């Protein structure tokens, strides 16, 4: 979705690179929801009570305004990826600040967050999802699928999970992903497709183990 929009915004991006705060404000407003999604996805659930994602967005904006001169040097980087970088720096700071006591690896904080993958949660999710589904069996099946998905994601190795996270939870394009991972777009694409295949395999493995008896 973004490749087409980059053209529209490139004018703005140029202005932003020249230090225009108005341009930054417009671009920031445009990417606001995507950035928010990144925060939601990356933030530790224990912190959500203390810091709202709006706060983080605001801090990111302030940081961006302050560091706008830096952006002029990042000629390779799109405005979105630069802002994303700032968001992640904010997140690292906040995690460090709030979870200091637990001495957790800041890198680890940036991984997939555990979302209490209990069947109950999955069931609740499934019920939400399934408003139109009337048969109870379908709700249960749905809950199972979600549980499989959560556990499959958690079982994947770091690299695979990260590429799926970037592409689907952060909703980056392949080109953006390549940029973030410092890879050629074709290599990023290959890695993504491989990760998705593995996910698919893990899913069917879970299903087999669950329903093995019926076969």
């Amino acid at each position, binding site marked *: 979705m973004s490749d087409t929009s980059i053209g529209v915004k490139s004018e703005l991006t140029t202005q932003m690179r020249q230090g225009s705060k108005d341009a930054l404000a417009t671009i920031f407003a445009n990417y606001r929801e995507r950035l928010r999604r990144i925060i939601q996805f990356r933030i530790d659930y224990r912190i959500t009570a203390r810091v709202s994602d709006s706060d983080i967005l605001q801090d990111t904006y302030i940081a961006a305004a302050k560091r706008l001169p830096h952006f002029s040097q990042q000629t390779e980087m799109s405005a979105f990826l630069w802002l994303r970088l700032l968001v992640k720096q904010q997140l690292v700071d906040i995690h460090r600040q709030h979870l200091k006591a637990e001495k957790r690896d800041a890198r680890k904080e940036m991984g997939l967050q555990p979302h209490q993958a209990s069947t109950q949660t999955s069931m609740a999710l499934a019920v939400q999802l399934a408003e139109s589904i009337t048969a109870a069996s379908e709700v249960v099946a749905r809950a199972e699928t979600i549980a499989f998905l959560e556990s499959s994601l958690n079982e994947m190795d770091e690299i695979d999970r990260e590429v799926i996270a970037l592409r689907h939870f952060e909703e980056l394009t392949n080109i953006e992903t390549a940029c973030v991972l410092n890879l050629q777009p074709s290599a990023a694409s290959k890695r*993504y497709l491989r990760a*998705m*295949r593995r996910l698919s395999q893990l899913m069917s493995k879970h299903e087999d183990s669950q329903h093995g008896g019926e076969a």
Partner: protein
Amino acid sequence: MNPDEQTHHEDNVEPKQSPAPTKADHFDLDKIGELFADTIRGGAYPNIDVYLQMYPENADEIRELLESISLIETFKQSKYAVSDPSARHTIFTELDDYKIIREIGRGGMGIVFEAIHEPLSRKVAIKVLANNLLGESKHLVRFRREARAAAKLRHSNIVPVFGVGTSGEHHYYVMDYIDGMSLHQWLMSLEQDRSPTAPTVDIYSANTFTDENTNKPIEEDALQQPGVEPSTIQDTPRYQRWVASLGISAADALHYAHSQGVLHRDIKPANLLLDRNNTLWIADFGLAKLAEQNAVTATGDIVGTPQYMPPESFEGDYDIRSEVYALGLTLYELLTLKPAIEGNGTADIIRKATRGVSVRPRRLNPKIAEDLETILLKALSHEPADRYTNAGELRDDLRCFLADHPIAARKTNPVGRVIRWSRREPKVAALTITTFLLLGALTGVSAFGFWQTKLALGRAKASEQTSITSLALEKIAKNEADGQKVLAEKNLQVAVKALNEVMENISRRGIETGAEFLAEVTDTTSPNVSAEDAELLNSLLGFFDELGRNNSKDLLAESAIAAKYAGDISMRLGDLHKAELAFNESLNRTRELAACEPHEPANLVAQAAILNELALITGLRGRLKHADNIFFRTKRLLQSCPDVMATAEGRFHYAIANRLVASHATRIGIDEPSPNQGVGRNWLARRVRLTEPKPGIDKAQIALREAINVLTNLTDQYPENQLYRVELARAYRDKAVTASLARHRTLAENSIQRAIDLFRELLVANPTLDAIRYELALTLCSTETFNMDQVRRSVEAHELCQKLLETSPDLPHVKALYASIRATLAERQMRNAKYQAAEDTWKEVLQIYESLIQTAPNVLLYERRHSDTLESLAELERKQGNGNAARNYLEQAIEGLQLAIKRSPDSPVMRLQLNRLIQRARKQANAEKTTVSKSSIGE
């Protein structure tokens, strides 16, 4: 699961606004995926087949990828739902003192969360009510009143309600957390597992089905109807009996609630919970009223889920027979696995609900027992007058069914009833259009309202963060003056419940069944409380302290009781200091409570009871004079009002006070020996040499006479009250001890015999009560008798004690009793010059006391007996001429006592004992020196 099911949308939903995928020049799987994902993010449900058709040669690859994408994207959307972006992040994590763990579910009235009450680390369930239900303050008042009524319900099948609270704009309802599932969920899971061919798994294991009367698993084979091969589990008699037993529990709980004037108003499978022990719990008492009072006020009693509403409720009639009907509907559904009322859409359901149940259970499942069906039909009669008149009758008939007795429903011409039942026509001709509209509105509003509630809660959370509690309080203060009270009351009830559980734990482990059955004065400090109890208790005590600071009047009664409880437990923990503080606290609150009615006998008696506890503790801490003062306070208090001594309880506590003061007076006589009294006493006063009667003894005798008089009258008047008897027997025992100290042999012998007889009778009446067994054993060896009975009694005490140790090997006071019995034996062995045997026995005794001191370092008595034992061992060695060994033992005793005195510096008795030991050790050293010098001269 078939992977196709994951993408079920595609089967019936046309892709909307889906940008038609255009075939690229070359096959780029990644691009296809990106396009597909974007389409989903745009809110459409793209059809995978469209993509497949474009690249048939790569169909498998594409399907695999797109299915995964579809799954992830839907998953993500649901996770970070929804339209309001500002609320997406919100995870509701705290509510006043409660930390939210997870959402359990959402239902008719709000969202239910599992939560932890942080100060007490107690798991609770919290229902946050939809805001629209409590829009006006008069509704709020009513809601609180209802919740309070529900909180008063105490029944083993009703989910305990702790209270209500308000946080920001949100009202919540705190109840006990039931680990299990609702019958609704259970039915759903059953539907899931049910297959037409055979039951897949027996998810409800054999012990699921227990006979309500025997509580034993029902043997399936025994109940199996001959020749009937059950195709599914619900066809078995076992299953039906299980359903019947659930019905019994529910009906019993309802009957009880009705007797308390509380109607549930929304009985349905979702409100009946099944915990892991297979116990049924009714949830949400009184909550249904909320919906009624607000959403449909104008039309009256339309409330609840139409599917589970009795016909008359649509006309605004609702009483206990309506709840009988609603329970009948639930049982119907459990037996047939089909809702009794089904329809397409709300209007249809309401129409059917007003007509009542039209399909007999046996038509759906012929294997249902006829009697059970008859019971259901009676409960489900369309006319309330034809139903059971109350839930108790339904329960009794279900019991008859389980016991294979004839049921009451059958007696009334079953044929006629069934015909009448199946032929009847809807009484409610038409539902008013207003009612219907309002009902529809209610359903819609609630669904929306809860979502709103959750979002708003999150928002409130994010913006208020730290100040949420104060904001909440402010808000309540604005709305209602007693806002804070509500909060405090809720917390208090959680705390009291936690306390009750600790007490239950203790009495399950211990032999005492309650504070009343505390053992002999000096032995009450048995810390048979686990470390966890202690920890929980400490947090509770802190909690009560805090509560005490800002309590309003209404809470005084409860907090006074709680403080007394806390004192009792501290005492068992051996922390006498803390116990004293707690009892004082309790006394202050009780007194404050009594301030408005200073002459109300119950208030005075309550104060006297606490004063007695205080006297006991003060005595245990060795401050006998102070204990004496407390006695005079108690006496004055009880005699200040003639009405008090007219009550049995008043006289009872007066007698206890007298008995306590006697035991203290006796100890003043013993523990403060005259300076020329060379040899100390041990715990049975065997070695006491009383040259002249001590004034303390006289006083004790007078007090005991008074106690015995009062208690004798009480036991005559209330022969069924066992506590009075226990107390009387204890008074006789004390009298015997006192008499024996004063050398009134006959009186001592008669009194001890009386005490023994009384305890024997009590034990015969309560053969399982170990507390009485303990008292008897204690009595059997508590005086030195002057005939051959002594040996016989020692043997019996020994046997009783061994029995006690078998059942509760770790109870300190039992161990202590055993040690003292063994010590008696050792003394006899010593007297008979069986030195080797005596030494072995003494060493055994020593070991017991050592372990006791380890587990209960606060109990002075164990320290002193430990030191006594060492002294006896020293004496033994001295008699055998081993001076060195004797001195060794004495030094050990001195060391131990010095340590003990450091821990409890305010015990004059221990100091006396220490001085005596030091003197002895000196004497022993001197004696040795002379021996040594003599022998050296001899050489």
